[in-house]
């Protein structure tokens, strides 16, 4: 087998040489969050809903995570979608038997799965974005493989802006390794590669359905 060259020493010597004798610029520090990334309370929730809806996500609202099975079954029926879901193991403890005709499966998604269900780790009202982390409890494939993606997010986890999401991740990292993947998701998949015309459902989910939950998320209840 051919031996790959290791150019590390050569590259670092060049970088250091290029920067010697330079007056080094200081780091500008944290930003003053833009106004739209600085909303609070109900205004923040309304902003999240408006921004996500503008990006073609649909929104539902429930009181507790226990309400999810019913809310999901009802929405799927209303949309004329199959009731077979692949669900993030973080939601294993919910009583999925309550909704009749519902066939839950827990784990990662495959291309045979039409509907995926997962729980957001955080979210940003600024852009109507949800933040997912890769974990045995929330496999990444759920976010990208099924045609329809359903994501539950606790209202308590909706931050004003991206900075709040980073902060929640930093808190998590205090007791856990950096997640393998962190996915910020804003609306369903799309492309404009054909004549600059926007088409939804390029390679990822054709639809994104967000369910806002009053109660704290399982991420915070049993970390």
């Amino acid at each position, binding site marked *: 087998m051919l031996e790959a060259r290791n150019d*590390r020493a050569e590259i670092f010597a060049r970088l250091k040489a290029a920067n010697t004798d330079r007056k080094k610029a200081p780091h500008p520090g944290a930003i003053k969050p833009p106004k739209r990334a600085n909303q609070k309370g109900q205004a923040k929730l309304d902003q999240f809903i408006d921004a996500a809806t503008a990006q073609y996500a649909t929104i539902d609202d429930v009181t507790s995570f226990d309400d999810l099975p019913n809310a999901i079954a009802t929405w799927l029926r209303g949309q004329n979608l199959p009731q077979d879901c692949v669900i993030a193991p973080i939601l294993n403890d919910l009583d999925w038997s309550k909704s009749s005709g519902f066939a839950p499966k827990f784990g990662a998604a495959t291309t045979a799965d039409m509907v995926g269900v997962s729980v957001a780790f955080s979210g940003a009202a*600024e852009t109507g974005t949800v933040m997912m982390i890769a974990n045995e409890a929330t496999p990444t494939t759920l976010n990208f*493989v099924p045609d329809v993606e359903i994501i539950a997010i606790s209202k308590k986890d909706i931050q004003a802006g*991206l900075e709040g999401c980073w902060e929640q991740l930093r808190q998590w990292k205090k007791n856990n390794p950096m997640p393998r993947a962190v996915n910020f998701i804003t609306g369903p998949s*799309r492309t404009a590669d054909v004549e600059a015309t926007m088409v939804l459902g*390029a390679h990822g989910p054709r639809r994104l359905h967000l369910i806002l939950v009053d109660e704290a998320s399982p991420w915070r209840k049993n970390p």
Partner: protein
Amino acid sequence: MEVSSQNFKENVHQAVDDDNLKGAMGKLTGALRPNRAKAVAGLPEFDDLRDHGIAIKMHTLDHIDTYLEQFEENVIANGGHVHWCADEDSARQTILDLCRQHDVKTVTKGKSMVTEELGLNDFLDQHGILPLETDLGEYIIQLRGESPSHIIAPATHLQRHDIAQTFRDAHQHLDPNRPMDTAEALTEEARQELREKYGAADAGITGANFMIAETGSTIIVTNEGNGDLTQTLAKTHIVVASMEKILPTMDDAGVMLRLLARSATGQDMSVYTTLSSGPRRPGDLDGPDAFHVVIVDNGRSKMLAGSEREMLRCIRCSACLNHCPVYSSIGGHAYGWVYSGPMGKVLTPSLAGLDQARDLPNASSFCGKCQEVCPMRIPLPKLMRNLRAKQVEQKITPLKQRMYLSLWASLASRPKLYRMVTGAMTKTLSRLAGQRRVFRWMPFVGEWVKSRDLVAPEGGSFFDRYKASKGDDHA
């Protein structure tokens, strides 16, 4: 990728006569210019964020070795590997070795301009590894054997009927009479064709919009989701990134993401922004088993030491292309390399060599729109002027042109003589012009006059008129 920027003039002649290209370019700029304007208007603090982003970049470039080292430490701590490559040969070989190490036969790819720079697809193909592009635009041009004509919309030189024909030729197992006249139908067809390919690939290769030193993460920003399917479903994830993508912290990435999406497509946030930090963890149900980051220099350290240093701030948003009157008239292919538009006019000579791209820094009207819309306020016209000066110094500029330049220089550095000559020229030209007061023929500038009117000067030279008006109310 081979550089063919030396054929720029011929390429331009072909491009301006191509009506199909004209139609396609109109659709691109017609969408992206108003989108950006609207998104920028929606964030009143946009200019403050720009200044903040520039300060982050300047700081990072001044300490780039420290942040790259921190990045490497954190990738390793996350269970990944980092490989350093000084040039394109080294990078190609490293990627091939990684493929062999992991017994890779097929590769899916997310859109990556640095792999275009390396000519990676052809190289892997020659060594028995099948690369498959999964971004819709990249997939289309791979089927056609073309290179990208735009850094974020690679197939923007094509119209629907071109793409339909490409798919008809490539997907012969499908019904030849299927409807293919909408963007929706074409997008759906590519989706179905690629759907099973992600999981079947042995490796997924993506680029990186940013790297974060604090967490050892690479970031991709996409709208389609193909990059995420590529890196999540393949057994090995290989990231190829050029060095200047490094940022110190997650918060710094937050600033850049706000600037990037608005400047590129006019979105507030792209649909998918993903941080990748290593292989799957124990207990994980999905994700790649191995994670490699190939960091490519290929000319960047030379730029860091030279007068094109400011160009390393570029975040590859494409705003300069979308707003450039030259790019929107000739499209991306005329530029002859991976990077086109104003950014290409600086990057191609800087990375591929000044002698490889003689015409590029000169093909500008210097309208300055590129610098105006650049989120990193890169002084592109100034950088192009620097490159022109270098070309003259290194005698890359043609002899005839250099002779005119030195003639003009000796005139311009003698004010009295200059005024005398320009004054005499104005009078002579004014007298020679016929009734139409327009020249259709002129020695030395015949080509220029062919498609433009050279209007005859009226009422004396600038200096004469300035002198005459002195003391008037122009103060």
